C-alpha cells in the first residue's frame, strides 16, 4: 500500500524489480538512472558484493509530478537475485506497490525463471499480497544476446512459462542496451498509479 503523507501532500510508491540472479534487474535501474540523471536529484544507492552482485538492494527514487495535488515520488528497488538471499528478498518486498519481474531469456535460465516466479508468489503471500492482483509487468531480458549467437528462449515460450495464467503486460527487452527498459517502467508506473488511485482517491 502506497505511503501517503497528508501534511506534506506527498505519495511514495514502491516498485520492486524482482527476478533470478544475473537477470538484469540492477541493469534496468542503472539504465534509468543514466537516462534521467539530469532530473533525478538523489544518487542511486547500490548495496553490492565486491563482484558486483546485489547484496541487499538497489534504490532509485524520483518524482513524477502531481496527482490531485499530491506530489508523487516513485521509489525503485531491486532484490538480490541469488537463490541464497531469499530472506533479504522478502525484506525488500515489504510495502511493495508494484512489481517488474525481470526474467532471463537465456535457455539455460529457463528453470531459474520459473522458480523465482514461484518464490515471488510465496513471498508476496507472506505479506498477504496476491500475485494475481498486485500490479505486475513481465520483462523478458537479454534479447540483445541474439546477435552474439547465445541460445535464447523465444518471447512466446517465455509467455507460456511465466505469463500463461497471470496474463500481465510483457516486454522483450535488453536492459544493458536500454531496449524496452523505459517502456517497462512506464507500464508499471501507470498500472501502479491507477491501482493506487482506485484505492485512495
Amino acid at each position, binding site marked *: 500500500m502506497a*505511503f501517503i*503523507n*497528508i*501534511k506534506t501532500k506527498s505519495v*511514495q510508491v*514502491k516498485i520492486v524489480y524482482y527476478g533470478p540472479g544475473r537477470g538484469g534487474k540492477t541493469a534496468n535501474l542503472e539504465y534509468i538512472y543514466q537516462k534521467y540523471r539530469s532530473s533525478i536529484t*538523489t*544518487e542511486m*544507492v547500490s*548495496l553490492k558484493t565486491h563482484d558486483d552482485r546485489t547484496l*541487499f*538492494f538497489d*534504490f532509485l*527514487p524520483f518524482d513524477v509530478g502531481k496527482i490531485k495535488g499530491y506530489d508523487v*515520488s516513485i*521509489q525503485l*528497488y531491486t532484490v538480490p537475485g541469488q537463490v541464497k538471499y531469499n*530472506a*533479504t528478498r522478502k*525484506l*525488500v518486498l*515489504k*510495502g511493495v506497490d508494484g512489481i517488474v519481474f525481470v526474467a532471463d531469456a537465456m535457455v539455460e535460465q529457463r528453470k531459474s525463471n520459473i522458480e523465482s516466479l514461484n518464490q515471488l508468489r510465496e513471498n508476496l503471500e507472506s505479506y498477504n499480497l496476491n500475485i494475481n492482483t498486485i500490479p505486475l509487468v513481465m520483462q523478458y531480458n537479454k534479447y540483445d544476446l541474439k546477435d552474439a549467437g547465445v541460445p535464447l528462449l523465444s518471447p512466446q515460450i517465455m509467455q507460456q512459462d511465466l505469463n500463461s495464467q497471470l496474463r500481465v503486460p510483457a516486454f522483450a527487452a535488453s536492459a544493458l542496451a536500454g531496449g524496452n527498459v523505459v517502456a517497462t517502467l512506464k507500464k508499471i508506473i501507470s498500472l501502479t498509479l491507477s491501482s493506487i488511485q482506485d484505492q485512495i482517491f
Partner: protein
Amino acid sequence: MKKYPILTEKQLDAIDEVLQQKLIKAGVRNVMLIDMAGNTISKQDNGQFKIDTLSFAALAAGNFAAVEAMAKLVGESEFALLFHRGETASVHFSKIDQNFLLITMFQKDISLGIIRLKVTDTIDALNKIIYN
C-alpha cells in the same frame, strides 16, 4: 500486532513538535521518524545539517530489518536498539513498535546516555500521539 495507523495532519504536527522539542533542542542535529518500509513520516534538523533523507530512510529500514532477522536466528524476538558510532557523528536507531523506527543523529558533543534518555522520553510521547 498494532495495525499501521492513519495519521491526521494534527498528529503529524504534534510529532514534528515532539521531535523538535525533545531532541533537536537537546542538541541532536537530525532526527527522522520512519516506517519499517523506509517511508519518512517526519524529519527534523537543526538547520545546519542536511542529508539525503530519502536514501537514508531506505537504507535504515533495510538495515534494521536485517538486524531483526539476525535477532530471530539467535532466538531473540528483536534487537530494539542499534547504535553506530563514527568519528564525529553517530546514529542511534530505536524501534518504537512493529511499524515505526526513530533515528537520531548527533555529534560527539552530546553523550549517548543523554540520547538514550531523551529517546525513551520521545518514544513515550510519540506512542501517545500515534495510538491515542
